[in-house]
């Protein structure tokens, strides 16, 4: 790693101030950023650790909305998001137990790794990304590979999930990294079904709108049977070509629908 300072602000305001410094970068749980730093692929002057900010932690269900602090770890979401069981189950299967002890929802969404789990939940749920100075709808938030609507120095303080009637996440893992080769989050709301796909696209998480339409009309695995996910723009790599990923999108969607609770 290159040399850098690490600061640990106690409040969002302090963190925002620290991030205004030269070459400052936010550090969530560090489960992706630290390995990146080890490869010397990033050279911040200061890392602003968000892990000591208590106001960014916690899970709170209120009415039909589940609000999760941006600094909440996957383990905490897994344990406390019982109001949204599909989301709790997703969190319980991110990485491994040690990753879940440190990794945070805000860190995952800010990084927007194309194979991460959380972006699919946020997009399929039509979640709202709350930052230190605004609220961003999930549909506007994800802008491609490792790219989001966040501005420089902007911090995800919370994520608000409308709790669906039914939902499920199906992850088909890449055998080495155990990230999703294809992950599909299906959420059924009173006004329709949303389907978000992670792991598959060169542009990161996306909605499979054909499936959403079919499932909104008929929420059953059979409704997807006649559809074909397009292989255009899907990832081709060692672990699967675009055609295979397209196929898995459909299989995982069917399974998510069948398992939705």
């Amino acid at each position: 790693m290159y040399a850098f300072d690490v600061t640990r602000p106690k409040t969002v305001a302090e963190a925002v101030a620290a991030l205004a410094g030269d070459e400052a970068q936010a550090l969530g749980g560090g489960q992706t950023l630290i390995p990146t730093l080890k490869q010397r692929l990033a050279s911040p002057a200061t890392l602003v650790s968000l892990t000591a900010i208590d106001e960014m932690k916690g899970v709170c269900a209120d009415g039909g909305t589940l609000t999760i602090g941006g600094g909440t770890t996957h383990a905490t979401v897994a344990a406390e998001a019982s109001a949204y069981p599909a989301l709790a189950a997703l969190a319980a299967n991110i990485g491994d137990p040690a990753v879940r002890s440190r990794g945070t929802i805000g860190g995952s969404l800010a990084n927007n790794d194309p194979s991460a789990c959380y972006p699919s939940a946020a997009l399929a749920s039509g979640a709202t990304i709350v930052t230190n100075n605004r609220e961003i709808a999930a549909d506007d938030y994800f802008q491609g590979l490792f790219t989001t609507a966040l501005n420089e120095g902007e911090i995800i303080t919370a994520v608000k999930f409308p709790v669906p009637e039914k939902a499920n996440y199906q992850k088909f893992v890449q055998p080495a990294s155990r990230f999703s080769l294809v992950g599909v989050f299906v959420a059924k709301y009173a006004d329709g079904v949303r389907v978000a796909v992670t792991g598959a696209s060169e542009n990161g998480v996306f909605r499979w709108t054909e499936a959403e339409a079919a499932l909104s009309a008929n929420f059953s695995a059979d409704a997807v049977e006649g559809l074909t996910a397009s292989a255009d723009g899907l990832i081709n790599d060692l672990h699967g070509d675009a055609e295979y990923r397209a196929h898995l999108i459909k299989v995982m969607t069917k399974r998510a629908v069948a398992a939705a609770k």
Partner: protein
Amino acid sequence: MTKVTMTVNGKSVSGEVEGRTLLVDFLRDAQRLTGTHVGCDTSQCGACTVHVDGLQVKSCTMFALEADGATVTTIEGMGNADGTMSALQASFQEHHGLQCGFCTPGMIMAASSLLKVNPKPTEAEIRHHLEGNICRCTGYHNIVKAIMAASGQDVSAIAAE
């Protein structure tokens, strides 16, 4: 350099660290607690697993500064007060749950973390919990068996015909 202070295996320790000093380096180099190992640089093998404030973490994927004020437990702190091995450690020996020993500290830390929240885990739960701990020697058979036995389950029939 910044001063950090933390409680490691029950003792308060402090030292000067850089921002980039990983917790594992602080433990191995400054504290000479070399039982915590480094087996990869992509945060996957789990040989460096320790407990920070009671939670299982990879000490290679956390800065020492982030553990300032924390309570850290390493493999050296896992034995009984009288210096003997804990039931979990003894079970690994009893059931041959280790060969070269390099991944073993991480396995013990991960397994003890599981048993804290799930005192009688099933085979599948154990295998799932060990997702972040790679062993190249044992084929996991005797690790899983040792953890089941340590939780008081009868393992005599495992993989019998």
